[in-house]
């Protein structure tokens, strides 16, 4: 088993004349917290969307867990072990918190149409297991008391936590968090940091897109910086922080 969990090979994506990603190559190692930062519009979310199969890259591709990742198959990516949250929260608002997490279990369970129509013993056992696992995950992110509330009625911070629980429900090898600290206050950000560290300790590799440079530098083992769709540097935080190009990218100098 290779040390590399996800490798991006010269990934390119254009929108009309805009080069959102230009030959971005990077590698995420198993068990690390990997930060992806860059100014607004640098291509961070585009990179995420290509990786999770929402966009088809115009060039290059991804190798995940030793196998190429098929473009344009989001449910396959989830099955392979990539889960994500969204910059702008995208929960199933009219379903309860518990149900949102249960949807995430879908990919790890078997019963199909006939199982659901016949409700045989195996299906019932599976449904019970799904529910139990979802409850456990709500405890894990510390919002179990909101299990039966509709997702849209949860507070902002709880919605972010719920998104993480839903992503974890797919049992990902790689958890991708798209600006999880956006809009959070200092206390909430600190709680989030503890949660992410816990997730890594429990064996999940984390890819973090974040604006909060302090959070990224404190939390990540390695950091990649994107600017205008191109990779500027990929290194440990201490080196990245001192890099002249990064400082220029952020200060626009």
């Amino acid at each position, binding site marked *: 088993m290779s040390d590399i969990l996800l490798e991006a090979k010269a990934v390119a994506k254009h929108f009309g004349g805009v080069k959102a990603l230009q030959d971005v190559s990077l590698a995420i190692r198993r068990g690390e917290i990997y930060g992806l930062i860059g100014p607004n519009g640098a291509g961070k979310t585009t990179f995420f969307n290509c990786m*999770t*199969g*929402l966009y088809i890259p115009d060039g290059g591709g991804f190798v995940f867990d030793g196998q190429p990742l098929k473009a344009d198959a*989001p*449910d396959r*990516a*989830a*099955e392979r072990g990539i*889960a*994500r949250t*969204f910059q702008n929260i*995208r929960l*199933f*608002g*009219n*379903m309860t918190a518990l*149900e*949102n997490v*249960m*949807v*995430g*279990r*879908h*990919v*790890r*369970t078997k*019963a*199909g*149409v006939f*199982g*659901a*129509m016949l*409700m045989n013993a195996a*299906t019932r056992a*599976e*449904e019970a297991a*799904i529910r139990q696992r979802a409850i456990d995950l709500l405890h894990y992110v510390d919002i179990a008391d909101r299990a039966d509330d509709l997702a849209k009625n949860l507070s902002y911070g709880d919605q972010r936590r719920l998104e993480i629980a*839903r*992503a974890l*429900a*797919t049992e990902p090898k790689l958890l991708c968090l798209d600006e999880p600290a956006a809009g959070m206050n200092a206390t909430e950000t600190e709680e989030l940091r503890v949660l992410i560290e816990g997730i890594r300790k429990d064996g999940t590799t984390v890819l973090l897109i974040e604006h909060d440079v302090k959070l990224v530098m404190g939390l990540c083992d390695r950091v990649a910086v994107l600017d205008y769709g191109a990779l500027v540097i990929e290194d440990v935080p201490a080196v990245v922080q001192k890099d002249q190009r990064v400082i220029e990218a952020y200060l626009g100098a």
Partner: protein
Amino acid sequence: MDIFLQQIINGLVQGSIYALVALGYTMVYGIMGLINFAHGEVVMIGALVSITVTSTLAAAGMPIGLAGLFGLVAAILVCMALGWSLERIAYRPLRGSPRLTPLITAIGMSIVLQNLAMIIWGRNYLTFPPLLPKVNFEVAGAHFTLVQVAIVLLSAAMMSGLVFLVYRTKLGMAMRATAQNPAVASLMGVNINRVIAAAFVVGSALAAVAGVMVGSYYEIAHYQMGFMLGLKAFTAAVLGGIGNLAGAMAGGVLLGVIEALGAGYIGDLTGGFLGSHYQDIFAFVVLIGVLMFKPSGLFGEKTGDRA
């Protein structure tokens, strides 16, 4: 007064059939925004398959009740396969095309299925074998039969089953998630194609049961029976708020009752000028009224929770 009660009962029976069919429209619409106008034809195929199977088995000496049960199961299986094929062959290739394209295809599939049925079963009315003994009940001057009771009870059972499926199972959860946001659902590992296919298959199973009910209620079936029934059920779905499960059920029953009351009183209201065979106008007056005054339907406010 007794005509009022009588028509309420008749309306409930007819309405529970509408409700079963309306659920098929509303599930597919809720998940993918498509009005599957071929759905009425699935009901028709269900009725005709069950006639063939039931009569064949009964002719071979099987007790009629048991033969009818086999007929019902055969109809359900054939219709599920039909619903799956419709989605796979006619609609999936058009996913992502403008909304009008699959709609026209749906109408085309409806014509194809009618003609296919005409080729297989002929253009004559077929007699539906009586599945249940003719037992009559009377309550407060209103009459009803065992078949009517069975229709209402079986519909209620099917609908509770569907509600359980949608709100309590993993498949139902995936359906609701897909209805709310297909892209996010697929990122969470839900196979959208499978969920859409499942909506067609489950809706078609309900349609098959409805087909057998209509057949045994009117004791008659033919290749065009699905057309008007489909339109009425579509009206029921719109009345309840298309895309909403509770709406389809309530809309179906309500439409049945409105129609039955209309048919019961239209003679009195028009001084005998129009007879009860004009009952169809009520469904469409309701449809036009809903579209004019409350296009979202009775339960239509919550556009998010559609499946």
